């Protein structure tokens, strides 16, 4: 069994961890209300930070050989420091990628940073990260991304809960154990034609997908960190492997913490909704998630201009069923009237 290294953000290069002999797994919020984490974090911190830290403090992540952060939002940067201070014997690293992805020095800088990160792994764990190992890892992770993309191409055949289960378990299980099981693939039997695009940071519990299934709506596309954004771009299997990993990070669909051009994300998401003939868009925001909150006004305005109705849901760790359902149901009523 390989040692596991945890990460919270998909800007952490899995291939490098894997090539160093580790099994990278995503640390995700669970549904238990945090108790220990509140001694370290304010209550206005997002549930991702609070729940993940809480699991670590409760000893539930003791099987991890390390935790790797990526430079994205302020909260995760602060969390990296808290983690480092709280678990001094653990390998805690931050991969500081560029914010402006198409800046003139972005590629060169990121390559240097990824090499620094690989060297830090080598030094701390006395391992070697060879180009051959990197190439093998790249191929394996590309295979997983392709499998998810293949599933995604058929996503409207399945229930929203099936979509959630496949996407959510993909990153939280080790690559070697990853498989899309037939038992996960519940076929949807609803005839409703309401087509929705979901946008948000991560989705970690199935309340919303369950409500969408109950109400007969279908998810036609998503923009989640642990959803379509994860597998939309593959790493080139030729050339220098670190260069290839850097190129993927710089060209994949952006999250609100990254920047390519002022309207890059807005244009991409409006196009995503249009290309998928979406009837509406649901913003699934984690409460206190600044990047997505700041991103919302221009996105909402662009959807208004495109005459695509949208709904904002703000949820904490677990979406309240009644409150969420009335909002979603009223939104679907609004869409079906048109």
């Amino acid at each position, binding site marked *: 069994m390989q040692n596991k290294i945890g990460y919270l953000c998909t800007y952490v290069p899995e291939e490098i961890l894997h090539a160093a002999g580790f099994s990278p797994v995503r640390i995700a919020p669970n549904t238990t209300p945090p108790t220990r984490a509140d001694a370290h974090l304010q209550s206005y911190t997002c549930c991702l930070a609070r729940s993940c830290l809480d699991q670590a403090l409760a000893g539930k992540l003791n099987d991890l050989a390390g935790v790797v952060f990526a430079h994205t939002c302020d909260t995760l940067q602060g969390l990296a420091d808290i983690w480092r201070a709280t678990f001094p014997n653990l390998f805690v690293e931050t991969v500081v990628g560029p914010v402006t992805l198409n800046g003139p020095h972005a590629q060169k800088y990121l390559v240097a940073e990824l090499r620094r990160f690989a060297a830090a792994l080598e030094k701390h764990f006395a391992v070697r990260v060879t180009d051959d190992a990197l190439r093998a890892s790249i191929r394996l992770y590309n295979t997983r991304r392709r499998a998810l993309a293949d599933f995604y191409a058929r996503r409207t055949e399945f229930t929203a809960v099936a979509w959630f289960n496949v996407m959510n378990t993909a990153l939280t299980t080790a690559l070697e154990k990853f498989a899309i099981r037939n038992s996960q693939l519940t076929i949807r039997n609803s005839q409703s034609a309401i087509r929705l695009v979901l946008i948000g940071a991560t989705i970690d519990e199935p309340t919303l997908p369950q409500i969408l299934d109950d109400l007969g709506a279908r998810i036609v596309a998503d923009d989640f960190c642990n959803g379509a954004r994860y597998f939309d771009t593959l790493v080139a299997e030729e050339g220098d492997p670190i260069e290839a990993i850097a190129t993927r990070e710089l060209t994949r669909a952006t999250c609100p913490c990254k920047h390519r051009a002022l309207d890059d994300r807005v244009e991409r998401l409006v196009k995503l909704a249009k290309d998928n003939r979406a009837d509406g868009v649901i913003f699934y925001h984690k409460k206190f998630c600044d990047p997505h909150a700041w991103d919302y006004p221009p996105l909402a305005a662009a959807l208004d201009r495109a005459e695509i109705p949208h709904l904002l849901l703000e949820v904490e760790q677990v979406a309240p069923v009644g409150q969420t359902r009335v909002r979603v149901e009223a939104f679907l*009523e*609004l869409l079906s009237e048109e």
Partner: protein
Amino acid sequence: MPQEFWRWKEYNWRALDLSWRKAKIITAGVDVGSVSTQAVVMIDGKLYAYANRRTGSSSPDSARRAMECALEGADLILDQIHYIVGTGYGRVNVPFAHKTLTEIACHARGANFLYGAAVRTVLDMGGQDCKAIKIDAQGKVVNFLMNDKCAAGTGRGLEVIADLLQVPIEEMGELSLRIEQEPEPVSSTCVVFAKTEALGLLRKGWKKNDVLAAYSRAMAHRVAALLRRIGIESEFVITGGIAKNSGIVTRLEKELGIVARKPNFDTQIAGAVGAALIAKELFAKIAPR
């Protein structure tokens, strides 16, 4: 038994000049809210009877009781109603409903019927949440926003304060306006914090009316933010139980600089009225011509 200051009156009403016997379509709407339940019966799209009751611990029982209360003395039984729409928090638990719809759609439609087609913004101030709804001339929802989880700024919060100050809930609005100077608002994010603050003010020697004013202002403040987010277009109306509280309505109007159209009916029935109207449309679609 000590007086229960939060307890508002349950009642029913019937249009004695109308007879259901000649009606072509009899429909009903049942709005099972978190605090109150209304049943409305309409005959050919006209208001015929309604009842307003407290919601109990069981939604089906609450729905049944409200319906029985509305039909009291009408010699009309449930089976004679052609189509029933359930709405509100307990909508999926109305055992005799043919269809359920959200209270957002129903309040929109109800406001359009009760206040007229010129209504564009509806504020539904209910038992445990608030909804700002933009509607079109047909009473259809264009956009909506709901408040956050907490009960501050809702009917339940008002009941808590009525109990604390020992002021009958129906009198709270008027009393809150009988003050010398408008005080600063109390905390508006949480009903428990608001109660604690109100208690503190009482200890400081504040008069009940002033505490009520401070609480009402906080409530107005809170819902004003919701309305500003969605954008207020006239005409503006308020539905739900809190529309009956003049202290909150007056302060809200002042804060927003817009006057709400005043009703000549019980604002709590708007959701059930909308449900009964939509029931009529739905029945017309399935009824043999």
